[in-house]
């Protein structure tokens, strides 16, 4: 039984549908990452769950109860806002204490809880600091402590790493996941950055234009994107249209490919994703194993990235594909011909 259940939610802004018939569920203790481009309605979804916004239609259930019409301040959910929304007129202690004061907790308990929270987020001794003096990373930690302090039943994070620079962002991604898993708190976070979603979430929901495109574990999403949108949003752009043959292989403009597995019926028009990391440079036909497809083309762009070369290849059919080849063997130069063997594991059938 899911802890949070979103059922057929609709929301329209200025006659533009922001969320359309969206259903989603989150299990107890799970971290759900809502991943989508900006304007895909993910922040609106978060605000509807938080009770800061009302859906035009649809219901929200929490722990089996319908909470659709309960105001935000009675839901006992935590929310970490984009840019954190720390109270500028209060110090770190008072910011973190706010939720506890609202619960009318006694002062000694408040002190203990805040001490505990500041230790948890690594800000021991920061209680009397002014919010304005804090660095970006420290603000993020205070915001996390503030939303966690009143024992929320659900924690929501809106672009929690959005405004931080890269090294700090990676450190905090690890920390946030460790803290959330350590507390066993059910969480929901929104991001447009696939790295964040893949690193922090247990389950990812990819959204586009107010609809959910795919919900699954990060590994599955990355290996088997459900459709062309999910694939290209994850940066996988080698998409080919083809026809499924009776033997389970797919005929495409670049040749016949062997997808890993399929549940589609023969004759159907399908889209095939060729994973960029699963191609091998070959010099003669003997090296080709059974099931592999040979691809001939011309290098149009070659980028050395240290561990690998990223090659852009013009195929004979006129389509451009991108491949990552190991860095040890230098591949042909720009304008030279190239031959690649594509492994069956590199070919994924999507819708």
């Amino acid at each position, binding site marked *: 039984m899911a802890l949070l259940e979103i059922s057929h939610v609709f929301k329209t802004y*200025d006659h533009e549908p922001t969320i359309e018939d969206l259903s989603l569920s989150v299990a107890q203790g799970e971290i759900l990452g809502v991943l989508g481009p900006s304007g895909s309605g993910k922040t609106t979804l978060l605000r509807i769950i938080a009770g800061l916004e009302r859906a035009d239609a649809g219901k929200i259930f929490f722990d089996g109860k319908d909470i659709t019409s309960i*105001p*935000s*301040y009675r839901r006992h959910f935590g929310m970490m806002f984009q840019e954190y*929304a720390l*109270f*500028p007129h209060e110090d770190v202690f008072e910011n973190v204490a*706010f939720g506890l004061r609202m619960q009318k907790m006694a002062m000694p308990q408040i002190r203990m809880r805040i001490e505990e929270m500041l230790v948890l987020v690594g800000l021991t001794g920061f209680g009397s600091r002014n919010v304005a003096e804090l660095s970006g990373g420290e603000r993020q930690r205070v915001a996390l402590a503030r939303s966690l302090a009143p024992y929320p039943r659900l924690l929501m994070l809106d672009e929690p790493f959005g405004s931080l620079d890269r090294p700090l962002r990676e450190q905090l991604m690890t920390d946030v996941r460790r803290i959330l898993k350590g507390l066993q708190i059910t969480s929901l976070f929104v991001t447009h950055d696939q790295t964040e979603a893949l690193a922090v979430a247990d389950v990812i929901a990819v959204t586009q234009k107010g609809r959910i495109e795919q919900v699954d574990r990060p590994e599955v999403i990355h290996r088997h994107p459900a459709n062309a949108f999910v694939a290209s949003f994850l940066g996988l752009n080698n998409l080919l249209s083809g026809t499924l043959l009776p033997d389970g292989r797919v005929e495409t403009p670049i040749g016949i490919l062997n997808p890993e597995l399929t549940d589609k019926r023969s004759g159907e028009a399908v889209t095939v994703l060729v994973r960029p990391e699963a191609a091998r440079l070959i010099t003669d036909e003997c090296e080709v194993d059974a099931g592999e497809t040979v691809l001939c083309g011309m290098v149009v762009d070659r980028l050395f990235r240290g561990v690998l070369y990223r090659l852009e290849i013009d195929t004979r059919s006129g389509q451009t594909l991108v491949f990552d080849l190991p860095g040890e063997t230098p591949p042909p130069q720009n304008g030279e011909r190239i031959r690649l063997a594509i492994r069956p594991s590199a070919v994924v059938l999507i819708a």
Partner: protein
Amino acid sequence: MGYELLKRFRVLIAVTPLVFLGIFYFYPLIRIFALSFTPEGMWGMGEIRKLFTTAYYLQILWFTTWQAAVSTVLTIVLALPGAYIFARYRFPGKGLLQSLTTVPFVLPSVVVAAAFHALLGEHGIANDWLVKTFRLATPPFHLEHTVWLILIAHVYYNYSVVVRIVGGFWSRLEPRLTEAAHMLGASTLKAFFRITLPLLWPSLLASGLLVFIFCFSSFGTVLILGGPRFATIEVEIYRQAVNIFNLPMAGVLSLFQILCTFAFMWVYTWLQRKTTVPLTPGSRTLTQRRVITLQDRLFVGANVGLILILLGAPLFALVFRSFSTEEGFSFAFYRALFENPSESVFFVPPIEAIFNSVGFACATLVMALVLGLLAAQTLATPKGRLTSILDPLFMLPLATSPVILGFGFIIALDTPPLNLRTSLMLVPLAHTLVAYAFVLRSALPALRSIPRGLRDAAALLGASPLMVWRKVDLPIVTRAIVVGAVFAFTVSLGEFGATVFVARPQTPTIPLAIYRFLGQPGAINYGQAMAMSTILMVVMVVGFIFLEKLRIGERGEF
């Protein structure tokens, strides 16, 4: 030689406004001070002691303070919802409504007083309407000559001050802060008191203090609406000087008033520096939303309605009353302005007052433009420390109550070589003192925006300093000059506090005529007051619309 000439020229530019201030501002002030310390021609603290020991005067000090405090609190409470809708919502007609809220602030106090007479007076339209509708035997409102009418008029005046300052501040507050409080379990009310109110505090203090200063120095409103029972310090200065002719006491009261005003202003600037809370400003699209839900519609609708009623009703009543005669709607009161019947309070047809006012305003306009531009030119040349002293010095007359300026004029400028008592120039001189600061403030940003290189280039090409000013500065500041001119003209037309001291009985201005009409019994006097107030109001509103139009795309220092 050319350089020497330029230097002399600059000195002349700076000296002229300073000499004017010296003669028409500082000298009268010194005379007021001297008068209060030398009541019987020699040193003595008698009058000052009297101010703080006589129950009568203490009563005035107390009334001045508490009515200002109550007016301030009422204004803030009533204006907060208005500030909120301007800060948080986008709706059609918002810009227009925002401009409308400023209209009362530019209206002369006599017009506002006349308007409230017309609305809430004993025979005001509110009473008339209620008597007719509910067939009452007597009018239900008895607000005339009560403190209530004074308080309501003060709220009316200052509503826009609070809406503008607090609303502007509020629109920069992130709504997420309130939402964060909601998520942490704070109800709407708790979030307001714990988060919004503390964050708005600096703007509430600033606008509150401004409103307090305005109400503390309220003159025309209290004089006309309060009747003989109520007096603020300024009203008492007038009564002591004009009715009782106790000049030393008027001097002491003026001294006290000046000290209070400057003390409040000092606190105001100090607070402004002290209470800035670092805020991360949110973008407009984030902080302002459209009116969509029913709740939004009701809330915004109710507020817009309240604003329109609060601000529109008195003006409507004024216009309505100016046309409603015993024989129904007619121009009778307007026609009467051209006549001079024997029972009239004037020796001349009231229309003369309009000619007088326009004449005075034209003279003021010319003098204020010359002085204002010279002062602006002085401040525009980067001189560092001198500018930082001169700038507030030039603004002093605006910060001093017109009543005190007027009082200073009559006690200082009545002996040779400065015997201007019978001079027609006394009124425009007093008005210039108030109005030139507006010219200065409009022209200075424009002058400062001129790149230095432009002037140097013109000078190198052989232009004399005067030529440089004509060819470079003047075209750029023309717009600012027009703004300043309109300000000077309208300020002069509506000026009451100083005029009531310095104008001669046979050459009254429009506000003076309205004041005298309101003080006389009879429907015809009352109607003429309404008609004249309506005319003055229309002129003011037209001037204001003109300024608002000019202001688009350009930001002055207001």
